[in-house]
């Protein structure tokens, strides 16, 4: 008996020593739960799983956080230079113009632009006001750009393609972060974000401001075009600040997710921004220096329900509101040739609102078929006297459906359609289909045929009813644009994608023909204050070959994109049908001269990123583009196209501690246009001829807590 006791004691002693020596090991309680055997819900459902690029029905470019960081960009618009075929330009420092293919004017309205599935282009002009978006670049998780029409998957207005900005979800951050930027031309941004992840609730909040004093654009040969100054015109020089284009916005956004059970989750998003955009051009009385005050806010609620067999349904409600106040908006009550007087200006207080409700279902019919279908309704309201006269609203309905049919393990057929009303009496259908064939697991061939429409915006229907036009339509309810129909695109493409993972290398090559019919334009081929009405006058065909390559190594990557494009332009309607004499001649020449220059023959980018050591990171971006012209930059003998661009951006960063861990941080220096390339931006008046971009640098400091 006694020797058992001793043995027990020794065992106890050994156990205590063992415990003491490595107390953290056994100190953790041994939990008794038999938890591994419970029924587990499906977390990675079909809608959460990203489709690999080799199975996507259209050409897609994905820009992830590592790429955004490597560009050193401060504004979302700049990041789009990485997409083959994308044009990124500026009407002035705070008015970026972003679109695939080409543009009629500064209101790029031929792409669907979404943030987390919510359309952000707003009536009445259809453009996106990038400067006022209530997001910082750090709030973005990923940007997906579909480089072709995609109505069946992405909804209305995706004529040339889709930009889908996906923000970081509510569970992406646990902790806080502060970030400050300071740089040339008055660059001054500050942002703070914090997130909390709980068992069935999480949120992420981000707030701060973004400001700059001016873009720094200068010109050697712009001049003031005052009527009396013809003989001794006042020439600008490289010291003259021509554009009044600073901006200052405070913004905040929130994303929260509540998931009481595995089956249901509720996602709330909200954000607002307020501040001003400066506007005005030196020497132009009709464009006085002033601030345009803007307030915008949005909210979105999404309910996702996952069924037992992992099918799912989603119900989404969103609203967006924008208020704009311009103390001196120019109007031309007596026509374009009347003298400018004090009553050329008026205070404009515009209000724009959108409400949208959508339902989407994803269903598996066996292992081989997945069907997504649904519908939605959107209500757009605009009270914008100067552009459309009376307050207007339009309601649009749509239903959509598409199917993925996995014919064999290596052949996937996508087929879909969207049908929609434009609220003005037109019904359109946008079918599309594509076949993806995996020749081997690494190499995929895709052929696609896709169509989409663009419903004319409120401005195109009603501009003639605003005070800029003759009094014929002023204050009237009906539209001066008669028989306007949606623009229509047919896109055919063939692509080869290769994913050679063991060699850390992937690439895609694609050839396409995009034919656009019924392009909406006015008598002067632009959306300008002089317009009277709009018709589906024009058509164009853009052919191109584009591609991208990505190679990565242990501590870095290099990615490059390139597009070769060519365009043919024509008339949908006989020119004599709607305009006469000198105006017709002007119009014919104008379109036939500017349109062929509206896509750059060559454009591309190279982005390289490397971690030299654990703490030092360098990256650089090279953006290249041959000449390009926006269609309203005319006549061509007076206004050259935007010059060839070969711009180099650099970034160098030193990090401290571990990223996203308390005490971690980073200091970085970013230089845009480090090589002082003097590429020019869009300018269609003498005062804005040949404005070229400066070199701009800024320092950023980030800490995590």
């Amino acid at each position, binding site marked *: 008996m006694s020797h058992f006791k001793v043995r027990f004691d020794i065992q106890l002693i050994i156990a205590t020593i063992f415990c003491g020596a490595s107390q953290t090991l056994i100190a*953790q309680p041994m939990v008794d739960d038999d938890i*591994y055997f419970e029924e587990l819900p499906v977390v990675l459902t079909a809608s959460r799983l990203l489709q690999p690029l080799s*199975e996507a029905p259209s050409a897609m470019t994905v820009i992830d956080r590592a790429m955004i960081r490597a560009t050193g960009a401060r504004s979302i618009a700049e990041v789009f230079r990485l997409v083959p075929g994308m044009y990124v330009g500026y009407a002035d420092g705070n008015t970026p113009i972003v679109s695939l293919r080409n543009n009629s004017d500064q209101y790029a309205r031929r792409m669907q632009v979404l943030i987390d599935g919510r359309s952000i282009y707003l009536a009445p002009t259809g453009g996106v006001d990038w400067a006022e978006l209530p997001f910082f670049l750090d709030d973005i998780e990923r940007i997906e750009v579909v480089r072709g029409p995609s109505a069946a998957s992405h909804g209305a207005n995706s004529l040339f393609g889709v930009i889908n900005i996906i923000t970081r979800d509510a569970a992406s951050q646990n902790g806080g972060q502060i970030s400050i930027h300071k740089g040339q031309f008055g660059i001054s941004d500050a942002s703070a974000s914090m997130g909390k992840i709980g068992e069935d609730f999480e949120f992420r909040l981000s707030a701060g401001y973004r400001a700059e004093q001016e873009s720094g654009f200068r010109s050697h040969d712009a001049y003031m075009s005052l009527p009396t100054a013809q003989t001794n015109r006042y020439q600008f020089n490289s010291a003259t600040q021509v554009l009044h284009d600073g901006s200052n916005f405070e913004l905040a956004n929130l994303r929260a997710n509540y998931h009481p059970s595995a089956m249901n989750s509720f996602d709330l998003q909200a954000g607002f921004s307020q501040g001003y955009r400066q506007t005005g051009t030196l020497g132009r009385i009709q464009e006085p220096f002033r601030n345009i005050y803007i307030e915008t806010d949005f909210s979105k609620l999404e309910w996702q329900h996952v069924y037992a067999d992992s099918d799912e349904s989603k119900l989404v409600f969103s609203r967006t509101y924008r208020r704009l106040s311009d103390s001196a908006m120019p109007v031309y009550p007596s026509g374009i040739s009347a003298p400018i007087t004090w009553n050329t200006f008026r205070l404009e207080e515009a209000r724009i609102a959108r409400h949208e409700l959508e339902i989407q279902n994803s269903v598996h019919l066996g292992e081989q078929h997945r069907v997504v279908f649904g519908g939605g309704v959107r209500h757009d309201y605009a009270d914008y006297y100067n552009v459309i006269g009376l307050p207007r609203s339009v309601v649009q309905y749509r239903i959509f459906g598409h199917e993925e049919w996995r014919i064999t393990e290596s052949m996937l057929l996508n087929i879909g359609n969207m049908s929609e009303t434009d609220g003005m009496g037109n019904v359109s259908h946008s079918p599309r289909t594509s076949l993806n064939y995996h020749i081997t697991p690494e190499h995929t061939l895709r052929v696609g045929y896709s169509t989409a429409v663009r419903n004319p915006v409120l401005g195109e229907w009603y501009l003639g009813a605003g005070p800029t036009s003759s009094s014929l339509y002023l204050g009237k309810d009906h539209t001066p644009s008669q028989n306007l129909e949606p623009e229509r695109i047919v896109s055919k493409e063939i692509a080869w994608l290769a994913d050679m993972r063991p060699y850390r290398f992937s690439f895609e090559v694609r050839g396409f023909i995009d034919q656009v019919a019924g392009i909406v334009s006015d008598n002067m081929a632009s959306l300008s204050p002089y317009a009277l009405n709009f018709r589906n006058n024009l058509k164009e065909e853009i052919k191109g070959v584009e591609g991208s390559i990505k190679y990565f190594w242990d501590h870095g990557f290099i990615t490059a994109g390139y597009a070769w494009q060519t365009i043919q332009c024509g008339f949908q309607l006989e020119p004599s049908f709607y305009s006469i004499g000198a105006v017709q001649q002007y119009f014919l020449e104008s379109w036939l001269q500017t349109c062929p220059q509206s896509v750059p023959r060559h454009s591309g980018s190279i982005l390289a990123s490397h971690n030299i050591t654990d703490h030092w990171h360098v990256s650089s971006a090279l953006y290249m583009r041959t000449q390009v012209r926006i269609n309203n930059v005319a006549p061509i003998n007076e206004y050259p196209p935007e010059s060839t661009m070969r711009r180099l951006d650099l970034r160098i960063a030193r990090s401290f501690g571990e990223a996203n861990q308390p005490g971690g941080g980073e200091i970085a220096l970013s230089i845009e246009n480090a090589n002082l390339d003097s590429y020019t931006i869009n300018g269609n008046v003498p005062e804005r001829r040949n404005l070229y971009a400066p070199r701009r640098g800024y320092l950023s400091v980030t800490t995590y807590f």
Partner: protein
Amino acid sequence: MIIWLAALPVQSAPLRISILQVEASPMQQELSLSLMKVFSQANHSVQLIHEMNDTIPAADMIVAIGVKSSRMAASSKSPVLGVLLPKANYEALLHETSSRPEKFTAIYFEQPGQRQIDLISAALPNVRAIGVLYASHAAEISDLRKSATERQFVFREQRLHSSEDLHRDLQSILLKSDVLLAVPDPLIYNPSTLRNILLTTYRNQIPVIGFSEGYVRAGALCAIFSSTDQLARQAAAMIDQFAANNRLPAAQYPKEFEIAINRQVARSLDIPLPDLEKLRERIRSNHEKIRD
């Protein structure tokens, strides 16, 4: 007495077996049924009980399913075979209840480290760094570490400091790894953390190797596990050994295994997984190669 027993034929006599199943999850119920079937076929008399108390007749052998059942059975007088019992829990129970391996044996819940590493090299040949997050199963980690380094993998381990740090520690290990190998550590991998773990690993495009079929269905890329039939067969063999020698075989890992794959997740992460048969073959042949 002992001589008399030895003189008996080696043929195992029918035993009275109690299957103790405290929790009522579908998997445990399925295992109970498989065990009952297999034991009845061997002519043992079986009863299924859900708790231990004095009114229940003593048995020659108790098969305890799961951790709760094993704890309850460990203090009884009859020999116990624990099934679906993680190794770390088994060892802790041995220690806590002062029971002895001669009286308390088990078929561990998890697969041997070697086999888990075999799965990774068969399914993900391009992976180099394996990440493991653990809180309490330190001993198991050294087993995995050894198998991983033998196969030229880089082994990254991260111990969880507290449950609030789960997200941070997970993010930290995901940055250093090409794949996350889940170990049945309830402080980390439990139904309430399941969603966050799978969403975070997916956001980082890192596949998860699960430890059960359920995990694969939820979103893990693949898992190696033993089906209830396989476990029942192994339990029956162990009991046969016991009946023949009157000695409990030592606690052991599951011998037979199954593989589960989530094809949608594989496609989405662009991971070209071979089909199940090829995968099974690769694992088996790797196993033969390394076995000492």
